């Protein structure tokens, strides 16, 4: 048992537990919290894999940005009656069966796909330098698309979430 295996086991079980907790939490705020732990766990996994830059990005964008937004949204809409809206048990059953079937299939696929890839190559993962160069050369187009996409999102989100003046002013 190498350290990697120990760490992976620990982190992966934490992630798995958190992910399950996201699904099964009745309270949406709790869900958000567990999602936060999942995301942090995933970022730790990236560090474990040696993708430090991706891990740090996951932390700053996902944990520090996206999750703050989500929690923000939760808080803005959190009223007691919405915290615990449920669905019928039958739907739970159907979805659960389907998801577990899918999981079994995916795991089968994973075992096939992962065959022969037991040890990572000796050289470390390319760090932020090669990534930056890659973004400005080989992957310039996706990079630009993402940039424009972000701009559009910025404008769109600002437009959608702006304070609207209601003609009647019947609600605050």
């Amino acid at each position, binding site marked *: 048992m*190498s350290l990697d295996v120990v760490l992976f086991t620990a982190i992966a079980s934490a992630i798995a537990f958190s992910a399950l907790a996201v699904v099964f939490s009745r309270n949406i705020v709790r*869900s958000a919290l567990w999602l936060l732990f999942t995301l942090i766990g995933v970022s730790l996994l990236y560090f474990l894999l040696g993708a430090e830059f991706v891990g740090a990005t996951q932390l700053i964008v996902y944990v520090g940005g996206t999750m703050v937004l989500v929690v923000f949204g939760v808080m803005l809409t959190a009223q007691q009656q919405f915290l615990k809206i449920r669905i019928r048990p039958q739907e739970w059953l159907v979805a659960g069966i389907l998801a577990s079937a899918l999981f079994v299939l995916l795991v089968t696929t994973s075992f096939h796909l992962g065959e022969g890839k037991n040890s990572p190559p000796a050289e470390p993962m390319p760090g932020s330098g090669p990534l930056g160069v890659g973004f400005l050369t080989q992957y310039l187009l996706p990079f630009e698309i993402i940039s424009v996409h972000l701009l559009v999102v910025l404008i769109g989100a600002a437009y959608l979430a702006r304070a609207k003046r209601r003609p009647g002013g019947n609600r605050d």
Partner: protein
Amino acid sequence: MTELGLTPYLCLGAFLFCCGLLCIATKRNAIGILMGVELVLNAANVNFVACARYVPQFALEGQVFALLVIVLAAGEAAVALAIILNFYNNHSTVDVDKADELKG
């Protein structure tokens, strides 16, 4: 198991993916659905990065696309939340089942 291969990562990704789907399928809260989507995206990202680590020719590609997915997810969350807030303003609820004006 002395060596950690690609398979555990892929399995973890599969698990996250299924959790995400389950989350989308079982939540009625719009934000809960959004969380499910985030889980699914993370599942994909785990696979990307794991493949970047274990398949040498994907060393750069995997990370690049993981980064792109992260950034996209941020944008997606922003827009989704804007929509949800709008929905909340108009319907005073975040229960997506109430958003069925267009149903057949």
